[in-house]
């Protein structure tokens, strides 16, 4: 077995970490809103959030390609501010991953917040805690498991992203050539040894991460009672 080029591995980890970090910031308020709103817009927003779960990645990728193309308003604006195109770039890949992995962040967080319920929040409010104070001191600690699950699922799901990347990112070494693309590439060119090394690595990594999550989950459950 020959050692494959390490660059797709680092690129993938960079993409997954960045996507997860940004989704924590974006997904938490969205999940909080979904868990607590009485708005009629809620089912609409929920459906949009869940779309990446059911759509073929090529459909999402196709529309993202259109929206991010330098000929579209968003794509053109991006070229003007940053000097580079969104399509076939790492930045474009991050944008695409955020949308693609959104449900994996928002859904576990929403259920975690719903499980906490109004009770502890009302108790905190009656003790003088503002909504933000109550969120950080009561809701967030009580949703710790939800945050871990959401983070890990988002990270792991971004690792395995293929269709969307292929559509909007292509296969540019060091820029958009992530693991899944590299594996595909190796198979296409009949480099089975390299494909094997990357695939086995990804398989083992994913398994270990999930194992850790479920172990932590079980312990957390016992501790919370």
């Amino acid at each position, binding site marked *: 077995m020959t050692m494959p080029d390490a660059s797709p591995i680092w690129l993938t980890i960079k993409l997954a970490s960045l996507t997860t970090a940004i989704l924590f910031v974006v997904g938490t308020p969205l999940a909080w809103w979904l868990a607590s709103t009485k708005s009629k817009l809620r089912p609409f927003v929920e459906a949009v959030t869940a779309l990446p779960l059911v759509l073929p990645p090529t459909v999402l990728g196709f529309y993202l390609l259109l929206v991010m193309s330098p000929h579209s308003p968003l794509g053109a604006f991006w070229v003007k501010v940053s000097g580079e195109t969104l399509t076939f770039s790492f930045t474009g890949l991050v944008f695409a991953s955020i949308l693609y992995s959104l449900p994996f962040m928002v859904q576990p967080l929403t259920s975690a917040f719903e499980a906490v319920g109004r009770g502890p929040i*009302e108790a905190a*409010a*009656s*003790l*003088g*805690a503002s*909504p933000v104070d109550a969120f950080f001191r*009561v809701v967030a600690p009580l949703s710790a498991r939800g945050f871990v699950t959401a983070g890990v699922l988002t990270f792991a799901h971004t690792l395995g992203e293929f269709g969307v990347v292929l559509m909007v990112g292509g296969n540019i070494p060091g820029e958009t050539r992530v693991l899944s693309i590299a594996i595909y590439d190796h198979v296409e060119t009949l480099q089975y040894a390299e494909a094997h090394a990357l695939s086995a690595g990804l398989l083992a990594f994913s398994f270990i991460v999930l194992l850790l999550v479920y172990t932590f989950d079980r312990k957390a459950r016992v501790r*919370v*009672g």
Partner: protein
Amino acid sequence: MSDSDRIKKRQDGEAFALSLRVVLAEFTLELDEILTPSGVTAVFGRSGSGKTTLLRAIAGFEKPVRGRIALGDQVWFDEEAKIFEPPNRRSIGMLFQDVRLFPHLDVRANLDFAWKRRNTWTAKAGMQQNIARDEVIEALDLDIMLGRNVTSLSGGEQQRVALARTLLTSPDILLLDEPLAALDRERKAEILPYLEDVTRRFMIPTLFVSHDLDEVARLADRMMVLSEGQVQMYGETAEILERLDLEPIGGRFEAGVLVEGKVLRHDTRLHLTTVDLDGDALAIPLAEDSSVGDILRLRVRARDVALATERPAGLSIRNVLPGEITDLIRTPGSGEVEARVQLRSAHIRARLTLAAVEELGLAPGRRVFVLVKSVSLEGGR
């Protein structure tokens, strides 16, 4: 307003003028009342009568459609002036039926959560005394459990921690939403004395929602009876508990009277305590926790009282008191009559049959002997 003005207002009870005009989706409620600083007002009614909703509106968890909610000079809701203070800006202390301690924090950290936030509304209201942390911990006997995980506590212990937690914010009004409903009889008996003690000791006017008349009789000085979102009755607890028309609302609760008397002596051999009702001595089962001179609150059910026209001899009933009938009220649609009898200073109610009233020729003004079969002890102070 200076602090001393506020303290004076507090002492006069003026600061606790609770003004409510609440129009919620399901009901309208109007009430202007000055709550006494150490007073407990029960909000009583069947489930669905709107009592919890009322409390939640005062706390700010429900927004009324119209109306005004104010405590003293703090306006918490005014539809016309477009004022709505969120719960965290109202100087309330709330105790929930389902306790709601924070499970990720131990007892000490639950208390600290409240303690750290005790001044969040002081700037606006500023009339509450600052309740001392140590005094609260001592009053509720929490010393030994400070380091414990709240999930390991019994239901009664949890509610004690929750009570302490809410006191530590030095609220101007305590809102108790059926805090005992989830507890069994023993746990209830364990926490009731703490509730009694705390409301008197810290001088916080209290609204106490309950559907249990025994609890109301024990804790509340005044009571408000809600039915379908309307205030049906409002007044002194003792007075309202006597009213027969309470029965359809009170359900199992028996009509009767609430009397207060002073402990005269204990007889441990016969297991009796003698209580003086301003001239009339009443023997009750030994009240072990009380000492001579204590005031006890007793409830005498109308069905446990019989009347005799002459002093009976050879009777097993120990309590025979002379009195005079003041009223006879026939219960509509039944053969029952409720008699009100004036004793030396207290009065008592008896449930009789119409047949007995006619045979004995009972009428207002008639001197009788009151035979009390049993008395229940509701509390003491």
